[in-house]
């Protein structure tokens, strides 16, 4: 009988006894969501989050060594730093350093978009401010940050005030909305936010890119009809005119869910709008195409399929780079396809880096016409120069 009892005890999976705080829990390492950018001197800056602080590090040797971190927010606060929701970094015309992030609030799916600036190359930061004037405890998350040709700081985000208002009135409303704001005074303050569109996807990053005239364009996952999650394109107007939102992809992927997979956008000096996006109507696929808002993209190309995720795109002169994470049974590879004819054709996919540990989304950067990929991995931050 004792033996039977002993045998029964042995049957209990040992993990049943693991509870919070016990040694079987994995240590909480910093989340991998990070952003990087070069300033006008070629110094690389990197922001990520650790212990309630957005932290800034820099490198003068293209990422081989990183400086000690500077805390962007002196007072610790919760910070989204994973997947599509990560701290952002951009520079003003005189290397003013702008940082934004989304701060989780107490309730699920809530957040505030936060902003701080440094006017001394990242040595000191202003006290963070909340960008939106709306202070409801709802979603204002998935911030995207860019500086336009006039030095105006533009921030767009996903906002749920309208779905909440509609639901309260018993009206149907799919998804969330995209709002944006800007600062005309170098980030000291932001104008009251403007709604770009109703019924957008709730959980995908927004891509912002500068156009040749210095204006800012946005590409984001939107909802059409009954949960068709295609992408919309719009120029974010910062004057008196209203932004015009047009459907820009026509994949017809229908999903009542969260793709967690936003697009990428890069606009050439010739105005060609190079885009990458993900859809899984059939097999999961990353697409490249040149946006022709209102119509299907031109030069569409299935860049990668199963196991491919989180692509980014960049353009310089007639060279277009597309990078993405490719996962397999043994870890992650960072993949590249390159076009030298402005996106009409791409060469075959090739591996440019590999990681056996977890990785964040790759981000394409440029310095004096050379392209690099910022790749944050659990084993450390890496900057990979593109093969020539």
């Amino acid at each position, binding site marked *: 009988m004792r033996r039977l*009892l002993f045998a029964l005890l042995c049957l209990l999976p040992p993990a*049943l006894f693991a*509870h919070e705080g016990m040694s079987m829990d*994995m240590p909480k390492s910093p989340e991998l969501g990070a952003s990087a950018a070069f300033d006008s001197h070629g110094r690389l800056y990197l922001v990520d989050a650790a212990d309630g602080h957005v932290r800034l590090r820099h490198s003068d040797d293209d990422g081989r060594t990183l400086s000690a971190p500077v805390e962007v927010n002196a007072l610790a606060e919760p910070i989204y730093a994973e997947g599509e929701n990560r701290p952002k970094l951009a520079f003003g015309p005189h290397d003013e350093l702008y940082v934004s992030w989304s701060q989780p609030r107490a309730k*699920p*799916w809530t957040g505030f978009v936060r902003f701080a600036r440094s006017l001394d190359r990242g040595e000191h930061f202003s006290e963070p401010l909340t960008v939106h004037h709306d202070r409801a405890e709802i979603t204002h998350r998935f911030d995207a940050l860019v500086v336009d040709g006039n030095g105006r700081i533009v921030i767009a985000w996903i906002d749920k005030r309208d779905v909440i208002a509609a639901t309260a009135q018993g009206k149907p409303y799919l998804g969330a909305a995209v709002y944006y704001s800007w600062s005309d005074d170098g980030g000291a303050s932001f104008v009251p936010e403007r709604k770009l569109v109703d019924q957008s996807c709730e959980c995908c990053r927004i891509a912002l890119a500068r156009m040749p005239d210095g204006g800012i364009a946005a590409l984001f996952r939107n909802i059409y009809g009954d949960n068709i999650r295609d992408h919309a394109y719009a120029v974010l107007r910062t004057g008196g005119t209203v932004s015009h939102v047009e459907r820009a992809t026509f994949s017809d992927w229908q999903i009542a*869910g969260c793709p*967690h997979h936003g697009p990428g956008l890069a606009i050439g000096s010739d105005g060609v709008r190079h885009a990458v996006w993900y859809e899984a109507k059939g097999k999961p696929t990353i697409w490249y195409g040149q946006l022709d808002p209102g119509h299907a993209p031109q030069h569409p190309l299935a860049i990668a399929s199963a196991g491919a995720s989180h692509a980014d795109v960049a353009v310089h002169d007639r060279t277009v780079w597309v990078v993405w994470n490719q996962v397999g049974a043994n870890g992650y590879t960072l993949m590249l396809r390159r076009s030298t004819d402005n996106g009409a054709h791409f060469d075959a996919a090739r591996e440019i880096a590999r990681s056996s540990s977890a990785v964040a989304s790759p981000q394409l950067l440029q310095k004096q016409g050379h392209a690099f990929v910022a790749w944050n991995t659990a084993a450390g931050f890496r900057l990979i120069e593109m093969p020539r």
Partner: protein
Amino acid sequence: MKRLLLAFALLLPTIAMAGSLQPLTAADVPALLQPPAHGVRIIALWALDCAYCEPNLEALATLQRAHPHEIELLTLTTDSIGQREAIEARLRSMQMDRYPARAYAEASPEQINFLLDPDWGGETPRVLVIRADGTRLGISGALTPAQLQKLR
């Protein structure tokens, strides 16, 4: 001793079902994908950041309760087990803590996504059905009533 044994035996299923969140590593995936002895195993994939997941989990729980002997239901969040506290709180608030629950033991979920189902890009909710005959079915997005009825 007999009473102790009986009490223990009665407790076993409860303990096995209890909402103690377990990690899922890449090495754990093959065992999870083994066909059940009978009926179906439904792996309900969800994420903290997915507002569609809550009603979907509730619908799957309702289905499981209607067919308790045919359906083995377990929840699996793509969030890292490093967020244990938030995950367990959400499971309780959704009343899903009665089902075996697991969370990814990786900071980046794509590898486990791929091992579970290479034709899944990580969108949630996702349901993975494994039948006793070894066949599988994967559906992304909130399930329609017609899709729900086809899971068994």
